[in-house]
């Protein structure tokens, strides 16, 4: 069946939209691995722990701290972390942590915020030891930006 110029271009365009190049399947794995192993610049956060051989001071990359905090908060039922922001003082000590959380529909928010704060402070104490901030330095902002009945 003959097609006019516009119809030919339209059909070719639709075909291209559906088209997946074989090259994508060849490059996907390597490209992802390269990306995920790339270095993300990250500020240091100071930690201090007592060990059998004495007190040890160390630094944790803030990116790593945020990653592990996210993993801890994800474990809280009905909450999903949206953003996690850390700030340090002039001595690289963690000063504040702000966690913005997406809450599931119909979940009481204050108990949820308390649970997130509790998990966060416990995790910070594990990672940063004596230099973890006090519980009141962990701000938990609850943001209801969507409604989710099931999986967040």
């Amino acid at each position, binding site marked *: 069946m003959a097609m006019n*110029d516009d119809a030919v*271009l339209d059909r070719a365009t639709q075909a291209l939209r559906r088209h997946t190049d074989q090259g994508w399947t060849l490059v996907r794995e390597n490209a*992802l691995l390269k*990306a*995920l192993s*790339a270095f993300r610049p990250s500020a240091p956060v100071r930690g201090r722990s007592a060990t059998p051989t004495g007190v040890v001071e*160390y630094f944790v990359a803030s990116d790593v701290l945020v990653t592990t905090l996210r993993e801890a908060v994800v474990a809280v039922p009905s909450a999903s972390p949206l953003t996690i922001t850390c700030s340090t003082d002039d001595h690289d000590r963690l000063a504040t942590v702000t966690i913005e959380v997406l809450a599931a529909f119909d979940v009481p928010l204050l108990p949820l915020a308390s649970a997130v704060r509790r998990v966060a402070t416990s995790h910070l104490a*594990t990672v940063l030891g004596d230099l973890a901030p006090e519980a009141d330095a962990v701000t938990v902002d609850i943001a209801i930006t*969507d409604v989710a009945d099931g999986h967040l």
Partner: protein
Amino acid sequence: MARLPPGAIVGQVEAVGDGGYAGAVSDLSLARRAALRDRAAFTALVDRHGPAMYRYVLRMVQDPEVAADCLQDTLVAAWTGFPGFRGESAPRTWLFGIATRQAYRHRSHAARLPGPLPDDLVESASHAPDQDAVDTALVEALDIALLGLPPLQRSCWLLREVEGLHYAEIADILGTTHDAVRGMLHRARATLAERMKGWR
């Protein structure tokens, strides 16, 4: 930097799977999780938009090897840049913006290298046996026609007609105006229609 405490994770590379996100989670949610170093979320986002980004950069740089390098650099830039992503544009638009910058960077580099015209621009895609042969041939013809467009017009046309971005998003990505995008699209369509005339 001194020792890290037990359990701290540095430079971990996990298996590249879909992370179980499938299609239920929005792009924005995946982007936010990727910003928090969630590798599975980043992988899910890449699997969602990677084929389209590859399709786009391949037609911009006209060489599968250069396209692979370009896409890899795009993903590296996206992963390292996600902490700075503020959601001012859709994640898909943001990713295509990075892909466009990388495509232009790789194009200018490749232009300095001698080499034959890319006969293999159109790859032998893995078509199902029953796929319409006419569509396959049309894609090949369209790819050849696209070679005749100036890069900016090609970007405009691909981003609008194939990837479905809005005029404003394209203008933002290309650093130009809404009207300029409209003009380039008009010229690109006319040129492509003319070059596809042999098909009836």
